[in-house]
């Protein structure tokens, strides 16, 4: 869950006077460490941990049992610290504080106090660091939606890079955003081409909802920069982050059985929410062998069929270490064409 809470963790640890080091990413599939036969995110977690083994004093792999008051996380997270510990041959101390926010569990604050204690900080120090982290995290979350669209995926979580502001580009009817400090080359290229194709006659960019576990969306090693590719194709990205919990709950509360994974609820809820309107298309990113997604994917497909087919274009992409950027590009291009076609059709009807 680096891809949601990292800013919080970083500020907390820095507040305690530790420097935070993240791994450099994998980039090449030859480098992946296969400790167990799990889903790609898990394999990457192990790889990152092995990379960091020699470089750090402590490795922070929280045992995420639940991050919601009544729903839980995927069971693999529960064993993750243990897997990491064995994969690094017990050579590095792992901070594996359990985070369980269900009723009757321990509050987040308590868990972080314990982490602070392990690092030798006093209660007051931890408390201050926690408050500071909380504050800056909520600020970060506020700017999050803009950040997704205006920064290259690799820099989304570099807290020091500010979110670029919108700026009117001369000669363009639309506000265009400037790229982050080091834009990915294909992105600039893509943006230019989409400008020619779509920008001239169509005024607003296509709004496409990208749905999936945060790590599937934002980890460059998993998604192969899918979001940047999409941005390059002139899509404006919307994620489930803009929805309130209520909006998500509304879509899943009438099911015959409660989906008890918080991420699963978010996926199904936001997917059905977006399909009912507000965007031009929906993309669902899953990683191969993800147990939750496999089950929910089938559920979504069937439910849509029973309800009479999706009202909007829906693309489901399954990602693993063998996914190629080119393959993704082709599918996204085709998807964009479908979405555009559909939009121009509906304009004619009007």
């Amino acid at each position: 869950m680096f891809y949601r809470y990292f800013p919080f963790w970083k500020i907390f640890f820095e507040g305690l006077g530790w420097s935070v080091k993240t791994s450099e990413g994998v980039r090449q599939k030859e480098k992946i460490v296969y400790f167990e036969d799990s889903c790609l995110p898990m394999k990457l977690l192990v790889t990152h941990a092995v990379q960091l083994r020699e470089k750090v004093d402590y490795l922070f792999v929280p045992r995420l049992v639940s991050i919601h008051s009544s729903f839980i996380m995927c069971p693999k997270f529960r064993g993750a610290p243990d897997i990491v510990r064995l994969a690094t041959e017990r050579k590095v101390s792992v901070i594996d504080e359990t985070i369980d926010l269900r009723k009757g569990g321990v509050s987040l604050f308590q868990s972080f106090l314990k982490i602070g204690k392990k690092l030798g900080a006093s209660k007051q120090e931890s408390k201050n660091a926690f408050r500071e982290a909380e504050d800056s995290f909520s600020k970060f979350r506020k700017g999050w939606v803009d950040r997704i669209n205006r920064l290259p995926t690799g820099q989304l979580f570099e807290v020091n890079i500010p979110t670029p502001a919108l700026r009117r580009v001369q000669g363009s009817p639309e506000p265009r955003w400037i790229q982050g400090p080091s834009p990915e080359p294909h992105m600039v290229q893509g943006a230019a081409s989409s400008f020619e194709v779509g920008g001239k006659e169509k005024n607003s960019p296509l709004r496409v909802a990208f749905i999936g576990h945060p790590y599937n969306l934002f980890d460059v090693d998993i998604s192969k920069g899918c979001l940047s590719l999409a941005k390059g194709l002139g899509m404006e990205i919307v994620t489930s982050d803009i929805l309130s919990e209520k909006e998500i709950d509304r879509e899943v509360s009438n099911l015959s059985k409660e989906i008890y994974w918080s991420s699963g609820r978010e996926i199904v809820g936001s997917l059905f929410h977006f399909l009912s309107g507000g965007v031009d298309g929906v993309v669902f990113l899953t990683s191969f062998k993800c147990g939750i997604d496999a089950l929910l994917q089938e559920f979504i497909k069937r439910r849509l069929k029973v309800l009479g087919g999706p009202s909007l274009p829906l693309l489901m992409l399954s990602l693993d270490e063998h996914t190629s950027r080119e393959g993704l590009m082709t599918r996204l291009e085709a998807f964009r064409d479908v979405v555009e076609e559909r939009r121009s059709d509906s304009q004619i009807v009007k």
Partner: protein
Amino acid sequence: MKVTFPRLGSMHIFCKAIAETAGIPYVIPPETSRKTLTLGVLHSNECICLPFKMILGNFIEALQKGADTIVMVGSGPPCRLGLYDLVQKVILEDMGLHYRWLTIPPRLTWGAIWKNHEETKELRKELSAKNVLLFPYGLWMGWKKMMACEGLERLAMKVRPLEIKKGETQRRLKKALSWVDEAKTAKVLEEAIRRGKVLLEEMEQDHSRRPFRVAVVGELYTVMDPHINRGVEQKLGELGAEVTRTSWFSTHILRTMRKNKADRASERMRFFEASKAYLGYDVGAECNVSVGEAILRSKEGYDGVVHLMPFACMPETTASGILTKVGQEWDIPILTLILDEQEIEGRIQTLLEAFVEMLEWKRRAA
């Protein structure tokens, strides 16, 4: 109304017993076959675990045979089993099959009872007073038969490595189970159990053999159902290994009813405690038990452990990673078999043969 249920190991015997004794019409899903699996696979996603596909296949076949009410065990988080019904309902609906669904709650809470009440409202109208009155007796009969089946299977596991004519145990076990299945009254059942025991015990045996002791651990469905695991238990037995397993219906039913929760000394608790050296938290399902059992079996002097799991099973994937290390650190051979819908029977046979051969070397070296 015609009731049906998933087919798992010898479970159909006592589900049938319950329905039959209480006088409720039922349909037993046809024996799980290639066709069942193909049906299940066709109608689900490739990464959903094998039990899902099997159960779905069972239901489709049973509904096609005329059943109209599905009784399914419910389970809790975090494993996917808990959401099987949600997804399977939609799939069956999409296929245009008509059914009614009854979930047996995993935990007896008020909420679960209320939900059950809602689900059964309509069903109960179709039940006669006789059905309701006989139901407790049916449950009792079912329980008796379940214990009988398990007793016979345990006995078979013990004598199988000693059999002189290969496959004889399996033939006799099948016969004994069918006697149990056919028994209609408690008296006949007693007789069937006794005869079954004698049948197995009287088989020609070679007592000079020293069978390897192998524990089968892993996800409960793959451990309990010979169709899913392609008869791992039988194969190991015929290769000369005495198999032990701790996953039985009765263990899981008792566990759910929290009968042995208080009993700290119970086997599962022991395994759970043993896993703590490797796992800092309850990962869910059988993961911790698998790891703990492997450790304890090594201490108890077992020769090897076979770990079974369906492809992409979430808790057991974690367990398999940890078990590799357990094997190294506790010096016990562990064979992990990942099961899916592919034709892997031959491969499993080869793997098991190699495994048993390895045990033999290990014994000779010691």
